[in-house]
């Protein structure tokens, strides 16, 4: 039974991962990624890592994927860059190299002898056990990860503020708003004029 579930989830994971890369439409790619995350969560469940599996679904498949979809919807399904100057031999070389690595990994794992099996204690993979190891064995890494997240926020601020003029003073903001209000008024009055001309049946 475990084996059946494993192979189903593994196949799904590989298929969705390929779909993420192969699909031209970013919406489909995002949905394929969602499927990939769910398939991986199933694999984690098989490995007794319940907490990680649930966290993966809630955090990645839930929060992060929604963010992805928002961004794609915001940017629009454009922005797909063509293949550029990619040469065909590069593609074949890449496929060859990837295949070699895959064969190597499969051969090694297939031929390996796993002698030292570790016993799993009852609370392995539980939130309590993971929380405990975060504040004991992996305290330093845990703290540094928080700094990495903070750094990501700073990066977002830098790139997010790139296009607009930076740090307008209040007066400049007011002047800008006044100018755009003026322009809107002009456009409105032009629209009214156009409508009036249309209704009078004037030739265009």
């Amino acid at each position: 039974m475990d084996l059946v579930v494993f192979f189903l989830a593994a196949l799904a994971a590989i298929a969705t991962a390929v779909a993420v890369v192969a699909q031209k439409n970013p919406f489909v790619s995002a949905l394929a990624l969602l499927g990939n995350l769910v398939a991986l969560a199933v694999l984690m469940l098989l490995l007794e890592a319940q907490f990680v599996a649930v966290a993966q679904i809630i955090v990645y498949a839930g929060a992060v994927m929604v963010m992805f979809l928002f961004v794609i919807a915001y940017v629009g399904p454009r922005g797909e860059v063509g293949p550029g100057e990619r040469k065909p031999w590069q593609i074949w070389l890449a496929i060859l190299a990837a295949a070699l690595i895959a064969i190597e990994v499969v051969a090694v794992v297939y031929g390996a002898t796993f002698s030292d099996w570790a016993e799993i204690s009852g609370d392995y993979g539980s939130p309590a056990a993971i929380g405990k190891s975060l504040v004991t064995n992996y305290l330093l890494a845990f703290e540094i990860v928080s700094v990495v997240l903070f750094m990501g926020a700073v990066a977002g601020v830098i790139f997010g503020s790139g296009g607009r003029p930076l740090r307008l003073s209040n007066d400049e903001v007011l002047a800008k708003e006044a100018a755009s209000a003026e322009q809107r008024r002009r456009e409105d009055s032009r629209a009214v004029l156009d409508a009036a001309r249309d209704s009078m049946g004037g030739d265009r």
Partner: protein
Amino acid sequence: MIQAPSVDWFAIAPEVALIVGAFTLLIVAAFAKGHERGLSIVLGGATLLVSGAFAVAAWGDAPVLTMADAFRVDDLTELVRITVALLAALVILLSVGWPRFREHGSEFTALLLLVCAGMGIVAGSTSFVTLFVGLELFSLSLYVLCAFDGKSRASLEAGFKYLVLGTIGSIVLVYGAAFLYGATGSFMYDDIATSLAKSGSGDSIVVLGTALVLVGLLFKVGAMPFHMWVPDVYQGAPTQVTGFMAGATKLVAFVALARILLDALPSQEHLWSPVLIIAAIVTIIGGNIAALIQTNVKRMIAWSSVGAAGYALIGIIVNGEQGLRGLVFYLGAYAFTAMGAFAVIALFERDQARENGHATLDGMRAWGFSRPFAGMAMVVFLLAFAGFPPTAGFIGKFIVSGTAVTNGYAYLAIIGAIGSVIGLGYYLRIILSLYDRSRKTDVGLPAAPGLGAISLVILLCLAVVLFGGILPGVLLDWSGQASAFLAISR
């Protein structure tokens, strides 16, 4: 009740200072608009000073393991911390006249401080988890710093390329660490070494793990054939960031590589030694030949820094007290040489700000006459790259090659010499272009923005390069003291 691990605050004080400094700078800058540049220089400089002072204060102390043994503070860690803090201070000085720095100085400086913190963590990591987290902290910050010049497409391209390719490198490293974990049941270098010593090294999973870890780290180091990101990233990144990457990133990545290979995988030397030998040969020859055909000076020096990674690899291959001392000395000297050379290029770009600002061989023609000090300094830095006396680059290459010969790797020393000769070809091209008499004009250049600060950086780098070349004793002692912690653990 969970027993929290003991924390030796003094041991991790440099990193804590850097992180606190970065946070403080961002918060203060939010309330002090218009003083961005001054604040960044003062607070950034003060933070680096405090961090460096903590590292200097702990210099020579007995090694400390802290935070559940995940972090090791010995003289090698301290040396990296001090060097990185110095280089970061030089980056801030180089940024003074940079328009982007006026707008976003606080973010730039804060990210730079976080890079330094991440590098300290990597240098002292004793487990793959700490290594990976530190690596991500400094790499991610560096990706952003590379793309910081938002108006330049090249800069954005550099940041994006570095992000994608650097992430692949990290993934391969983690993949390898996972296999090693599977084989030994631990992420800690010491435990991996003990487990491998007990079980023997025939397990194919260990072989695969070692190979993947090697690939990931050679990627970070920028050695061939995992160098493809180096030229584009170095060329596109803001020049002061390039100078920092060429020195600091290489030093830190090599320290991490040395710690993993010598602390965790000494039993696998028969595996990784041939790999490194081939990588070193290909890197030295390939990097220098590729540099020959470049016309952009920034890109040319980027290729030459690929070649420099090859010389440093020899230090790990030889793997004795002398080799590791040579490795540390060579990389330390290289960091300041590269920083100086890129400072000169930064000055050139400031001079050319109104034109396209690209440091091509053609564009730099006769520029050495207009800026005599920077021009002469560039000549010294290029000779240091090539390994001429009396520069630190000569001593570094001399020690590395010398130990290679005495340890039976004479062919590596010969390859290194060939690489240096090829290198001379393009270094001379830059010098000839700088002092092209046919284009000589007597018109002096007006003061560029931040000229004083850039000149100071060039002067400091020049002092280090010449001091290390004429009186190398002190610096060699420091390198020996730091690298001893690699040799002892064997």
